[in-house]
């Protein structure tokens, strides 16, 4: 090479490096905040884009078929309900139904629909759409998850539409949840999906590869684009029916973007750098300290949402056939065994280790976060290793040999396996603590970590000694969770799908739940459910230790927040959220 081309090459190289450096510098500069707009009060800010995270891809956009977290979020953004249960106050609010009357026998609801509401394609929303939605839900070929929920005593509701603005719902029996039960219903457009329902193909409607132009909206936003693996972009629906108190049409935001970020660490980093305004759901306790410096700088806010409504549960398999040939059957199914375990766990230490102190001790499935239904008089078994050992001795479990473990009269060791699933740190840690604490009273626990799929398999086939699991709460009213409370329920995890109640106390709970589900007097329902919690605490089919306090990180530019402990904790009220400044 001669000198000249070589010099040219060096100059070129330096030039490229300098250019990249300058571009990098510029892009680093543009991260700084724009001048904040002056706002009179938070609520009147209009416009802007909100970016939230989404942890998993939606499998469908059809909430009637599958109310999973991403699908539910899609539904909140693009759909409206007949009536809405305010997730912060638990009050029932009118939505698409502007008013309603309830018949004296509480079995007929007459709803008056709002006038002038149209779908995003301009077609008016009428009572025919409501009737159609229920048809779709009850159609067996849809395989709707809502089918079981919208029944009383197994019988469906009967709907009629006397005119375009009136819907009459006849219930087969009284409903304890009242009109709030309609919070579960997603409306579907008859003019768009009728043909599919008739052909039995409603299940495939609103699939994820539907072109956004074909997706109708009756909510604050409509889907503009979906890049699989990356993001969903929603733009304002100009035909949204809702207006704020001053008469301004909602939503305030121009655009909502859901970024798909499966990894919680990456999520947090993006929140810190301002790429995300808020997250799909609560942050982990260890993340609170990470966000503190940014809080102090005024860039982020860490909001306490409240005490979680659901907590990690530890339960044994109480299905007799499983233990039929097992030498441990004499004591492992006894309630005293579970009571002893409850005494042996130091709930405060549990809260400290698993949730870094951000948790409250609990003794039952209903937590103080569920203010309306929590029974504070549930007996609390205090932390006492001596009491635990006493109870175990009463069952015949004492240390009969040289090792540290207890044995029963036949010499069988106090030893069982505990399944938990990998990837959920609070469950893994909880299981580890259980193992270590029970070691102190001489019970040997084998913690087996499984994949979620494998664990659910074992759970549903009742093939386990004990499991540590969390059942995510979607509704605070116990009448909406019959699956869990009733002995015939599919989520009655310790002994599922019983044809007749296996024990007296489960029968008692069944009867009391009948009151909760059908009695319309709130005081009666509360009294019955308080009693359910007492029975639960006595027999302990599931043990609970700590309910975490939930925290959410949100960018300081976001306003109009109404926090709830139910997911999506901030976005449930997205039509009234605002942002300051541009992106």
């Amino acid at each position, binding site marked *: 090479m001669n000198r000249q081309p070589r010099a040219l090459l060096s100059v070129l190289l330096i030039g490229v490096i300098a250019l990249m450096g300058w571009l990098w510098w510029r892009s680093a500069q543009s991260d700084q905040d724009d001048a904040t707009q002056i706002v009179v009060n938070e609520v009147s800010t209009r416009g802007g884009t909100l970016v939230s995270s989404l942890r998993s891809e939606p499998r469908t956009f059809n909430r009637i078929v599958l109310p999973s977290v991403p699908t539910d979020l899609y539904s909140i953004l693009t759909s409206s309900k007949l009536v809405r249960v305010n997730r912060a106050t638990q009050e029932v609010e009118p939505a698409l139904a502007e008013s309603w009357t309830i018949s004296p026998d509480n079995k007929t609801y007459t709803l008056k629909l709002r006038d002038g509401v149209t779908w995003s394609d301009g077609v008016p929303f009428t009572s025919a759409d409501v009737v159609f939605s229920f048809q779709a839900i009850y159609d067996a070929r849809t395989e709707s998850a809502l089918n079981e929920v919208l029944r009383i005593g197994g019988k469906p509701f009967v709907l009629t539409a006397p005119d375009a603005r009136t819907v009459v719902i006849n219930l087969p029996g009284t409903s304890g949840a009242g009109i709030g039960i309609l919070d579960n219903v997603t409306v579907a457009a008859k003019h768009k999906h009728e043909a599919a329902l008739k052909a039995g193909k409603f299940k495939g409607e609103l699939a994820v590869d539907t072109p956004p132009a074909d997706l109708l909206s009756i909510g604050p936003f409509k889907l503009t684009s979906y890049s699989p693996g990356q993001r969903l972009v929603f733009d304002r629906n100009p035909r949204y029916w809702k207006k704020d108190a001053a008469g301004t049409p909602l939503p305030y935001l121009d655009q909502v973007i859901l970024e798909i970020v499966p990894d919680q660490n990456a999520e947090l*980093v993006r929140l810190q750098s301002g790429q995300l305004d808020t997250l799909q759901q609560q942050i982990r306790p260890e993340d609170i300290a990470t966000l503190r410096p940014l809080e102090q700088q005024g860039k982020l806010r860490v909001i306490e949402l409240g005490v979680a409504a659901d907590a990690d549960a530890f339960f044994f398999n109480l299905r007799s056939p499983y233990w039929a040939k097992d030498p441990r059957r004499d004591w492992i199914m006894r309630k005293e065994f579970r009571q002893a375990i409850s005494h042996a766990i130091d709930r405060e230490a549990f809260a400290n280790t698993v949730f870094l102190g951000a948790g409250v001790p609990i003794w039952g499935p209903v937590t103080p976060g569920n203010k309306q239904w929590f029974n504070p008089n549930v007996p609390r078994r205090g932390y006492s290793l001596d009491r635990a050992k006493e109870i175990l001795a009463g069952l015949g479990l004492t240390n009969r040999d040289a090792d540290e473990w207890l044995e029963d009269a036949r010499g069988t060791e106090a030893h069982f396996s505990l399944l938990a699933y990998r990837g959920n740190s609070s469950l893994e840690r909880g299981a580890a603590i259980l193992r270590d604490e029970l070691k102190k009273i001489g019970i040997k626990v084998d913690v087996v970590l499984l994949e979620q799929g494998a664990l659910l398999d074992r759970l549903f086939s009742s093939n386990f000694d004990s499991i540590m699991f969390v059942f995510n709460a979607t509704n605070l009213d116990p009448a909406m969770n019959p699956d869990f409370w009733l002995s015939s329920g599919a989520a009655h995890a310790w002994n599922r799908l019983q044809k007749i109640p296996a024990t007296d106390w489960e029968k008692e709970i069944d009867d009391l739940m009948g009151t909760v589900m059908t009695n319309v007097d709130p005081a009666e329902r509360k009294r019955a459910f308080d009693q359910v919690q007492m029975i639960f605490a006595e027999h302990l089919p599931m043990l609970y230790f700590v309910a975490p306090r939930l925290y959410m990180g949100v960018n300081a530019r976001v306003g109009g927040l109404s926090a709830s402990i139910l997911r999506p904790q901030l976005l449930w009220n997205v039509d009234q959220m605002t942002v300051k400044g541009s992106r």
Partner: protein
Amino acid sequence: MTRRAAIMLVALALFALLAPWLAPYQAGEAFSGFLHAPPMRPHLDGLSPVVHPLVLADRLEQRFEIDSSRTVKLPWIERDAAAPVFLLGADDFGRDVLSRLLYGARTSIGLALVATLGAVLIGALAGAWAGYRGGWIDEAIMRVADFVLVLPVIYVVLVLRAVLPLVLPPSTVFLLVSWIFVLVGWPFVAKGVRAIVAVERNREYVQAAQSLGAGPLRILAVHLIPACGGHLLVQATLLLPAFILAEATLSFIGLGFPDPIASWGTMLAGAGNYNAVARFPWTLAPAVAIFAIVLSTNLLTSQPSPRNR
């Protein structure tokens, strides 16, 4: 240099082997009040080494303060259950990093050693047989070896591990992973051995042994493979750190050992949380240990550079 590297390696191996006696705490021993406790610096109080204990300042922030008014003896001398001594800090469960580092060395180095021995053995046998026999056996074995060598190691290990059940008990993991490593490692050894044997088999002493009636197995075992001794040793020193790294990678992505087994990879798995790593850098101790091992093996096998004028 080489001597120092050898000493460092032997020392590390010794630490690993003697972990149960050297480690102040058990691998799974957790102190719930000391999550992410920082390293505590020992200093001399008269003639005995002591440490100032830590006191929890803020549980949520996992912040601790040094209590200068008290001293606690080192755990090898005296144990205080309420005031554990973390010379290298504690991890997110409140377990002593130093103890887990030592036990982890045992697991990681142990696995790598087993795999290295296996790879060397099978590689030597395969390569020697190929070199001795020649012909189509030689061709076949070398083709297979070439093919395996072309593939990126981590991908092959990943695929082989991932098609097995994803969550397995630790002993099964140990066995399966070491077999996977042997499968991936033998071609490195085989190629070199084959080259040496192909040359050596024409030497007089081999021909002499053959004429004396020695069978091929005897010739291989007694003459040819030992002739590769130097090469085998070099290969072993190269394979060992590679296997340690491979185990660390597997455990890091969750396909290796499960918690609470201490291995360097599982200890690093917590480092996926960028923020935790920034605030609690002592959790990266296994990375330094791995670096030390790789450095020592590199020092051991590096050639002195040709001096120029």
